[in-house]
């Protein structure tokens, strides 16, 4: 499955990536699985393991409060720290 992943705030800074298209391994089917896999992608992705509990996810621009959320048919995934608008 090919998805677009967007990174925001310090996740963007740490990974050095704003947006990328990636081919997800077949075993990645949930948000938690995605975070596990991202954390294996090298030093700049260790932040996903270190700050796992802070990481927020939106799938196709819908916020998913639960890391158990399904990624089936996802086209655009966004990863970001807790929001601080307003």
């Amino acid at each position, binding site marked *: 499955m090919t998805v677009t992943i*967007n990174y*925001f*705030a*310090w996740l*963007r800074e740490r990974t050095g990536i704003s947006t990328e298209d990636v081919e997800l391994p077949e075993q990645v089917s949930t948000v938690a699985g995605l975070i596990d896999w991202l954390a294996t992608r090298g030093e700049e992705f260790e932040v996903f393991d270190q700050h796992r509990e802070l990481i927020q996810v*939106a799938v196709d*621009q819908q*916020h998913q409060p639960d890391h158990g959320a399904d990624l089936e048919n996802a086209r655009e995934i*966004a990863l*970001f*720290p*807790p*929001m*601080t*608008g*307003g």
Partner: protein
Amino acid sequence: MTVIPEIRIQAEDFNLDSEVSKLTKNSNDIGAVVTFSGLCRDEKGALAALELEHYPGMAEAEIRKIAKEAIDRFNLTGMIAIHRYGKILPGENIVLVIAASPHRHAAFDGANFLMDFLKTNAPFWKKEHLKNGKEGKWVDARDSDMKAASRWEDIL
């Protein structure tokens, strides 16, 4: 009558009077207008600017969702929300929320509700730029903001 909120994500500043008059002109059923302006604070004098990053598309959609909920809950007759992005200097505006209603408590509650959920649900992030040239930190989310949003579950 369906009330459609106006939501804008923009770099530019806004003008209170012209936004309020969009809601009140040609209307005789508005008795109360509440505006909330959120400004960039710098009590210690160390801040050069805040930089606001956002998730285009989702930012507008999330605020629109909250605004529609506010309109339904409080029977508002109009609602506008404007959130700025980019570099914002101390003393400058960051966000504007306007709620209009026949009655005052609904207008207060509508603006208050939208701000509480905007803080926790709208995909914006703030980074500090310091006057001394050093790299500032990303502003942390606050527990008090989570609590403020959760208080609305007990109401109505």
